[in-house]
């Protein structure tokens, strides 16, 4: 079993990320973006790329830093603490992992563009209310020298601004993953007003033409490429949620120490103490699951689903508890829009659903454990 303590490099990476984000993307940055109805900040993403984050999973020969999944999760954890919205998960984790599963110059060039911050990606898989890749119905039929795509995707995170789309389509004998320019004729993108101000879009495909070399991986076999990418995305999202939960908890403990009622700090009330202690205990268990998922992805990407589903399930439950307790313990002020905690609550809800909710991951674990 891999060592489950953070390495010195990871601590340094986290520290650098924190300083950078506290400076450039505190929660007030999200608030500004929301008030301006803006869901993508190209300047911020450019600077994040300059930090080497865009290419965290891009091989060195393609100009990336190739730091590995654990490092990507460290960055995601810090992003989560101040609710940063950026193309990091969609582009630098999910798309980069997908592209790494295929060989050839086309993929290498795409990875190089990701590392430089030159292109952004979005993953278009969901069609219904619940994450269910295998139920995807968008159709790609063979037509002359290529394919024609018809159908609709929903809740495509970062889908309103991404340069390229990874689209899961149903083909003759299975599913196929396409890598398409998002501006291709026949594609219509409608930005959704998400509750947490994260970018997402509903995307219609009406007779969209794709070429043979738009197929990522093999025809009728999307999952060889897609499954690892989803797995990496789930893990990074779990890490982001654990950062969110840790930050909400930190605000709450700070408030418990500072806020006085009935003549004493409310943190001296035993009932609140016990609940804070229980919440901290939950955070500790989740932190272990997060660390473990990163180690397992780096060790054996193909067999890391148990570790990843464990991380996502735990992070989902813990974030939900952390934001509920945060709102409750902050009292009325926590309910006002002027206070930040509401943002944490909304983000936790959206992240709970994205890439599989608690129940979805619980069933993955059940299958792997024979329950």
């Amino acid at each position, binding site marked *: 079993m891999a060592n489950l303590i953070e390495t010195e490099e990871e601590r340094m990476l986290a520290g650098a990320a924190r300083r950078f984000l506290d400076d450039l993307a505190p929660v007030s940055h999200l608030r500004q973006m929301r008030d301006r109805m803006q869901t993508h900040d190209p300047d911020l993403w450019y600077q994040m790329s300059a930090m080497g984050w865009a290419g965290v999973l891009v091989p060195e020969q393609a100009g990336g830093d190739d730091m590995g999944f654990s490092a990507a999760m460290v960055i995601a954890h810090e992003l989560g603490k101040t609710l940063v919205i950026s193309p990091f998960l969609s582009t630098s984790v999910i798309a980069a992992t997908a592209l790494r599963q295929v060989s050839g110059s086309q993929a290498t060039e795409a990875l190089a563009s990701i590392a430089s911050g030159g292109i952004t990606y979005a993953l278009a898989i*969901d069609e*219904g*209310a*619940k*994450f269910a890749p295998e139920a995807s119905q968008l159709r790609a039929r063979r037509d002359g020298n290529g394919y024609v795509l018809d159908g609709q995707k*929903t*809740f495509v995170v970062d889908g309103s601004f991404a340069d390229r789309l990874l689209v899961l389509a149903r083909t003759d004998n299975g599913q196929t993953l396409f890598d398409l320019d998002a501006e291709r004729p026949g594609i219509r993108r409608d930005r*959704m*007003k*998400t*509750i*947490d101000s994260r970018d*997402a879009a509903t995307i219609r495909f009406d007779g969209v033409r794709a070429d043979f070399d738009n197929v990522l991986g093999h025809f009728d076999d999307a999952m060889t490429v897609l499954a690892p990418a989803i797995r990496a995305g789930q893990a990074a999202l779990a890490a982001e949620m654990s950062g969110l939960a840790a930050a909400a908890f930190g605000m709450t403990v700070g408030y418990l120490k500072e*806020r006085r*009622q*009935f003549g004493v700090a409310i943190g001296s*009330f035993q*009932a*609140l103490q016990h609940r804070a202690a229980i919440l901290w205990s939950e955070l500790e268990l989740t932190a272990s699951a997060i660390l473990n998922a990163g180690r397992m992805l780096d060790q054996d990407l193909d067999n890391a689903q148990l570790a990843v589903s464990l991380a996502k399930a735990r992070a989902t439950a813990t974030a*939900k508890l952390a934001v*509920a307790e945060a*709102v*409750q313990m902050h*009292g*009325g002020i*926590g*309910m*006002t*829009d*002027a206070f930040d*905690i*509401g943002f944490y*609550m*909304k983000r936790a*809800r*959206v992240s*709970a*659903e*994205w890439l599989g*909710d*608690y*129940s979805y991951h*619980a*069933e993955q674990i059940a299958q792997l454990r024979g329950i």
Partner: protein
Amino acid sequence: MLIDQQDTEAFRLELRQWLAANCPAEMRDGARDETAACWGGRSWQFSSEAQKTWLERMIGQGLTTPTWPREYGGGGLERAREKVFFEEMAAIGARLPLVSFGIWMLGPALLKFGTDEQKRTYLPPIVRGEIRWCQGYSEPGAGSDLASVATRAEDRGDHYLVNGQKIWTSYADKADWIFALVRTDQEAPKHKGISFLLIDMQTKGVSTRPIRLISGASVFCETFFDDVEVPKANVVGVVNQGWDIAKYLLTHEREMISAGAAGLTGGRSIAQVLASQDSRLTDATLRARALECEIDGLAFGLTLERYKDQAAAGQAVGDASAMLKYMGCELNQRRHELLMGMAGMAALEWDGDHDSLPADWLRSRANSIEGGTSEVMLGIIAKRVLGLPG
């Protein structure tokens, strides 16, 4: 009048006929949410002719306040008939003709603590929906410590001079009058120097500002008092003993919030949502939670009925109402978490609309804070109901 019928079952039949003849079709949609309701007041704009007609007809029968004494315009119904009344209203999906803090809160307080003069002055306009009241209790920074009232009312001979600020005043921007807790003795211990004061919102120096919540624009306001002059006759009960009235009203408020929050008089039920989606829950985690939520919701609904029956039988509910508040709010929050999970990604889009799943979900988080936090409720149960020490 209907209420002159002597026998309860005869009353039921008479009422049924009267409702059939007098409740406008539009008013039979079963709507129970705050925005569909008629709140009355000087500046009230009826949403339709039907709403106005319905209110007037019900005022004529004393049925805007079915249990209040008839001398103030109420219906004078005892519990058994009140039950019949609500059963018959529910049977045709009739809206309440009028909702207000005057009916829910100030009225009961005046009936118990007010002078005859005050009852005659203030109750009939409440019954007829002519004056809309709001409640001024909470203050910035006080939180659960409601008795730490800093808004001061200085004795200036024939009047008080009021200065200070209230927060979480629901509908203060739409109300005509406010009933507020003010400090009339700076020296006395915290609970002993508070008075219960009625203030016309049109008085010079009163102003309000709405509060934006995480669930969007809200009914809550901040209310400011800046050298506001209020006649001394506007004190209810004994000067400096307003805390007694406040406690009495908090009990009423708890029952109100718990009934509303439990979604028993409206709101989305799990079964309804499933039926509308034509689906059954197969997912183990969601299904298990939904069943538990349904079971607890049914048991809670029965408990509300049981407590009302007890109150009608003369066994005061008293501090046990803290349980209704606690349980009702926790249940409502669980239900909304669940509904969000059931709706999945479909509920992640929100344009700020109030009548939406995300707005209700976010709003539900306030239930366990407003009107006394869940922690305060549990403390009341532990100490006053169970008699635990400390």
